[in-house]
């Protein structure tokens, strides 16, 4: 903890968002935007796809950096235009960051994002993943865990393949890594030190960089508003959301290794969206098994990158 505090204390004291945003108290998505801006600094243009951040910054918010709310599906393309325009005007030193939700990223915005990173624009794309369409009232997205209850799938998705290790949701980091971009990573607001380090790496990448940030949603997941960071930490500690990074599309590296993974029931039990699973121990067991297989697979991928590639070495 001490070590984390020391490193985080390097972050700018300056706030890049004036207080007085609208949006929910305790919102973890806002924590992610705030910390990213502290790393990127004020010479940054933010493009924000339609979603909760429009409710946070776009109703009565006060970003103190250039900010544009794009359409739902074109944040990647609009940011490409910003980057190309800056290049044309000879202003390459301005950071371009997209901060978009999972709906605007893994579903409707996937094509524009894929095009942007394939073309190689120099931008940092941060997807704040709250695992559903939370701003419109908790509908399921391609990033919703199949066993979660949403307003459009109250019973969750029961057709998920029990043999699948990726649990029938889009694995955006693998999708981005498959574009061979310099940097792609998962992150969690529960591990801010890991996150800010990744934002810094992404900003320094020579090309497009992608960070998939887990930001629990108080409303959509159903937990008390003080618990966002704790949930985000538990997701990592129970292997429900592993933290890793992929360089140049193939060098996998696990960045946070829970020494002894906690039982996933501890994570699921704190959220009302999993209440419909009931006391079916069978399902919890299957989920647990799935997560462990995925973790093993990740370790295999990291091992391929070779020893000496571990963090801290």
């Amino acid at each position, binding site marked *: *903890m*001490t070590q984390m*505090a020391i490193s*985080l*204390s390097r*972050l700018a*004291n300056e*706030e890049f*968002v*004036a*207080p*007085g*945003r*609208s949006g929910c*108290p*305790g*919102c*973890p998505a*806002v*924590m992610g935007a*705030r*910390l990213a801006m502290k790393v990127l600094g004020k010479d940054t243009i933010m493009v924000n796809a339609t979603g909760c951040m429009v409710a946070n910054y776009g109703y*009565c*918010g*006060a*970003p*103190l950096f250039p900010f544009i709310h794009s359409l739902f599906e074109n944040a990647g393309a609009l940011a490409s235009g910003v980057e190309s325009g800056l290049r044309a005007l000879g202003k390459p030193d301005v950071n371009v960051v997209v901060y978009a939700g999972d709906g605007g990223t893994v579903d409707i915005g996937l094509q524009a994002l894929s095009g942007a990173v394939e073309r190689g624009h120099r931008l940092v794309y941060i997807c704040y993943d709250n695992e559903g369409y939370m701003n419109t009232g908790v509908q399921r997205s391609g990033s919703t865990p199949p066993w979660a209850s949403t307003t459009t799938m109250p019973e969750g998705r029961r057709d998920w393949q029990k043999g699948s290790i990726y649990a029938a949701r889009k694995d955006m980091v693998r999708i981005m890594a498959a574009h061979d971009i310099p940097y792609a990573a998962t992150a969690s*607001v529960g591990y*801010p030190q890991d996150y800010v380090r990744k934002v810094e790496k992404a900003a320094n990448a020579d090309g497009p960089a992608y960070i998939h940030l887990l930001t629990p949603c108080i409303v959509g997941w159903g937990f*008390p*508003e*003080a*618990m*966002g*960071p*704790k949930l985000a930490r538990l997701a990592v500690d129970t292997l429900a959301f592993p933290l890793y990074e992929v360089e140049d599309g193939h060098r996998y590296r696990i960045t946070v290794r829970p020494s002894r993974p906690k039982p996933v029931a501890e994570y699921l039990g704190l959220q009302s969206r999993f209440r419909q699973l009931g006391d079916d121990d069978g399902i919890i067991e299957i989920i647990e098994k799935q997560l462990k297989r995925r973790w093993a697979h990740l370790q295999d991928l990291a091992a391929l990158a070779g020893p000496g590639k571990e963090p801290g070495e």
Partner: protein
Amino acid sequence: MHPWSASRPLSAWLPGGYCRSRRGAHRVFRPVIDDDRCSKCSMCWVYCPEGIITRGERYTIDYDYCKGCGVCAEECPRSAITMIREE
């Protein structure tokens, strides 16, 4: 005052600008820092979604804008922050 913190009016000609509003009035619980227990570790500052905790000799909270979410109290490793019900 921050140079940019003056509110810009929404202009019909320029669809830019921003506004801000004081949200503190809606708060149900108020976080109170116990300076004796506070080790100035930054964790409340890191997690505060409003960015209204100021680090320094003493850590202070801007109650005009604090929504009382309680994340600071929950994350404080030394339990130096208590949530007290507003009158």
